[in-house]
């Protein structure tokens, strides 16, 4: 089966890859581009482990075709830190022990970042509903919610 040549931008870098038309964007990121920080937990858009941002919109990369990436701006967990400087959310997740196994963590960080860019001062309820599509089976969400709220507060202070 012939593949389609795709040019796109991932974390600010221009990249090219060949996509089988059946590949999801998640497949393309992981298998074609080697960006395995984005995870597959379900393949049906129900767990959020594959969360990425495409042209400013938070999406499940398992629900998008790789060929749809043509010409888009894609942000993944690998682009979240600025060199050695972690994003406040990343720091707060470590500080609050907001991860146990860590498998859902990239998706939750990407989703939380999208939230705080849209709403810098979310209530606990708003954080919980925004992240309802990101399953975590280890933590019971408590420390995740606290880490997001704390990061939001720090970012507001810095702004």
């Amino acid at each position, binding site marked *: *089966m012939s593949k*389609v040549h795709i040019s796109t931008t991932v974390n600010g870098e221009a990249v090219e890859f060949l996509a089988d*038309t*059946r590949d*999801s964007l998640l497949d393309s990121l992981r298998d074609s581009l080697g960006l395995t920080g984005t995870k597959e937990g379900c*393949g*049906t*858009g*129900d767990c*959020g482990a594959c*969360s990425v941002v*495409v042209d400013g*919109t*938070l*999406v*499940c990369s*398992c*629900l*998008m*075709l790789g*060929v*749809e990436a043509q010409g888009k701006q894609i942000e993944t967990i690998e682009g979240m830190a600025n060199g050695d400087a972690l994003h406040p959310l990343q720091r707060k997740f470590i500080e609050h022990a907001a991860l146990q196994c860590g498998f859902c963590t990239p998706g939750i960080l990407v*989703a939380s970042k*999208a*939230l705080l860019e849209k709403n810098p001062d979310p209530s606990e309820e708003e954080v919980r*509903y*925004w*992240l*309802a*599509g*990101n399953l975590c089976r280890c933590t019971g969400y408590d420390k995740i919610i606290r880490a997001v709220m704390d990061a939001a507060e720090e970012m507001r202070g810095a702004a």
Partner: protein
Amino acid sequence: MNYHNPSNFSDAARIARDASGVTRFLAGGTDVLVQMRAGAVTPHDIIDIKNIPGVDAITRTADGGFIIGAAVSGAQMGADADLVAAWPGVVEGMELVGSTQVQGRATLAGNLCNGSPAADSVPGLIAAGATAQIVSADGVRDIAIEDIPAGPGRSNLVKGEVIASITLPARGQGGGDAYLRFTPRTEMDIAVVGCAINLTIDGDVITSARVALGAVAPTVVLVPEAADAIIGTTLDDAAIAALMNVVSAAAKPISDKRGTAEFRKDVVGVLAKRVAKIAYARARGEAV
């Protein structure tokens, strides 16, 4: 699988008409990709309509209605203040489809074409009296939303037809709509029962209404006798009791993994009561 990226709806419809195997239109993709991943459907041709100019825009009709392009996402609808103000029930139905991530992609047209009797956005559209613009190689036609679903997973659209947009009528004075569903979880769930009501009032009296129910029949259903139960009333206790009885009687649900028929018949009445109160309050301009 062939990936097509047409630049207008006529081409999209023609590609679909001429295709020999399984064909899927790709708007949000939130159902198509799930079906592909499950191995349930492997399209021979997939037609991406998202790059058609205007398909991702919400525009206004001359009389103040809304035209919602087939690729407009739930998140876009929620961000459109005019649309939210006019048709809050339609928007809240759409916003219940999937997670924040799914909201970034999922569309009204896709939710409609998926053909689920539990589709959260469909009762609100039907209650609102919305129509869909259908494009085929033969031309363009508008049909009422309630005429599109044919049964679970099936629609009345034929090969070579594609939804280009959804039109919501002008809201007008004294109108209010609302949608509620029941799910075991607070989010990330399929409606066990859903109910949308759109009504208009003159003073305190309901002058017109449309009631649509989800997940209680093979398709989302419009229940005119439920509307009749509240038209001409001030939504007093007797009217609400009548509404609850009518929707319970109109519901012809099945028992499945998500709930029993008995539960659905009970809860559809409860939802109708709650939805009617919200729609009525909205029509009166009260905050809810």
